[in-house]
């Protein structure tokens, strides 16, 4: 099994497409950091102008933590696409190129093969998040310095102390990875049904966009289904920056996301094990 996972990782690592995600993250993060390096002060003044009429605000607001938080905010739609670009291709790409025949006529069972692809896909997702963390948080802190984090909620500002921030970021990255693992599993599941690379990727993104729109619409009709949508819970990483920490909400979302992973994986296994390879 380890051997199979290594083979899957080797295939991912040697595919040029796999580096698109890393490149996109690098470009976006550097652009945002550069923009804030040049224009960050105006941005802060714009946000705080009302409060500055009544108070003198001391402290380094424009710090690495704030920049990292803004970057995470901005990348929240892009990250699922970058993940699905690779994980949506794990099975269907092999079907399109014919190598699925090679894979499934060997001694490894279909179950083992799919597990290996699932694990390799998640390792890729983790690598993306790790890269994002290194760039956004690591370089952000190095360039902009440390300090308290100002979280700009729609109904209030939350100011988290510097020594209270790092563990939240680590938790947020872990939660973000877990959320993206849902995308990994979802796109892998779709990949099992398709014989070409594009369909599962486009389908994954379409579902995410539609669910996200439903989740943001303030319509009573959708209120009953919103809690069941995985996109509703994928943004749970933001709650790690709330004060007090809404632990039960985070745990609930985690459980729902885990349930989605189990569901998608079960469907993937059910179909993949029974699928006739006719092409």
């Amino acid at each position, binding site marked *: 099994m380890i*051997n*199979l996972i*290594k*083979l899957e990782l*080797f*295939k991912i690592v*040697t*595919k*040029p497409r796999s580096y698109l995600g890393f490149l996109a993250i690098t470009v976006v993060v550097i652009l945002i950091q550069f923009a804030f390096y040049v224009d960050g002060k105006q941005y802060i003044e714009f946000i705080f102008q009302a409060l500055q009429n009544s108070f003198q605000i001391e402290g380094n607001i424009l710090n690495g933590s704030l920049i990292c938080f803004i970057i995470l905010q901005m990348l929240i739609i892009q990250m699922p696409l970058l993940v699905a670009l690779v994980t949506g291709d794990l099975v269907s790409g092999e079907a399109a*190129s*014919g*190598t*699925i*025949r*090679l*894979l*499934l*006529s*060997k*001694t*490894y*069972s279909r179950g083992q093969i799919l597990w290996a692809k699932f694990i390799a896909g998640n390792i890729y997702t983790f690598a993306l998040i790790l890269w994002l963390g290194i760039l956004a948080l690591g370089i952000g802190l190095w360039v902009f310095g440390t300090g308290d984090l100002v979280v700009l909620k729609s109904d209030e500002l939350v100011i988290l102390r510097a020594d209270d921030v790092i563990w939240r970021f680590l938790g947020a990255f872990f939660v973000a990875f877990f959320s993206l693992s849902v995308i990994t599993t979802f796109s892998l599941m779709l990949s099992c049904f398709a014989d070409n690379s594009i369909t599962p990727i486009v389908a994954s993104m379409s579902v995410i966009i539609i669910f996200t729109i439903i989740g943001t619409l303030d319509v009573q009709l959708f209120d009953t289904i919103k809690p069941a949508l995985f996109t509703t819970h994928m943004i749970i990483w933001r709650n790690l920056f709330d004060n007090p920490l809404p632990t039960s909400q985070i745990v609930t979302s985690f459980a729902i996301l885990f349930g989605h992973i189990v569901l998608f994986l079960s469907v993937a296994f059910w179909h993949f094990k*029974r699928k*006739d*390879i*006719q092409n």
Partner: protein
Amino acid sequence: MANNSIISIKNLNKFYGSFHVISNLNLEIPEGEVFGFLGPNGAGKSTTLRMLLTLIQPTSGDIWVFNKNLKTDRREILQQIGSIIEKPDFYLYLSAMNNLKIQAGLSRLRPSKSKLFEMFELVGLKGREQDKVKAYSHGMKQRLGIAQTLIHDPRLIILDEPTTGLDPQGIIDLRNMILHLKNDLKKTIVLSSHILSEIELIADSMTIINNGKAVVQGKVGDLLSNEDLIISIEPQSMANCLSAIQQSAWQKKWRANNKNAIELNLSKAEIPELNKFLLEHNLPTYSVSYKRTLEDYFLKLTSQN
């Protein structure tokens, strides 16, 4: 299961919805031979071979390979099978060497570098190991496919339409490779092909399937020996000879003619009678020869079914 059968298929069925693709197929494939697997398009050849490789699941029936049941001993069986289905499959963005390593890895092997280079030399790709497969020609890909098939030293090799896209030289090379595998390396080869002349040249045994059923099975020579031959007469005077044949009882045996030869469908026993007729009617000939083709046999059987 017959004693020397490497593959034994019993009452194999496959349905797609209500469409009965494979219908109670029974097959015995002897070990150590080249076995020809023939049938028209849509007959079920590819489906059967894919079921052998567990790419398609049978609806019912049993497949025994190496005296083991494919349902229960899949791993042990597939460890000893190499295959090319329709075309060899590669990760085009990887080098030939990496593709071969992946193939070995999938067979749970970690061959040494020397073994890998040996494979490339065997299939005539020495010096091209590090090239990306997408830069390979069709023939090179075919040879790499053979290397992939042999890397884990299988007992049984399944080739589904392996000559697709090959030029005449490529076909000859493949034929020689198959004969080498059988004769020198003692492999069993199951070969499905549309180029019936190739099957006739190299297959020891064969089966013809049609509409998912086995129509006939046996040694190639035995099956064809009972069939009519095609007699080709090359007369000195085409017009005289053709006229004489058309005015005689031989007219019923007439098959075809071109400007140089007249063809008749006869059994071997009728040839002396024909010779006598030609002599009696003073019809000198340059040659009277016979050929027996699998193609005709195939078409005859499949049209009957």
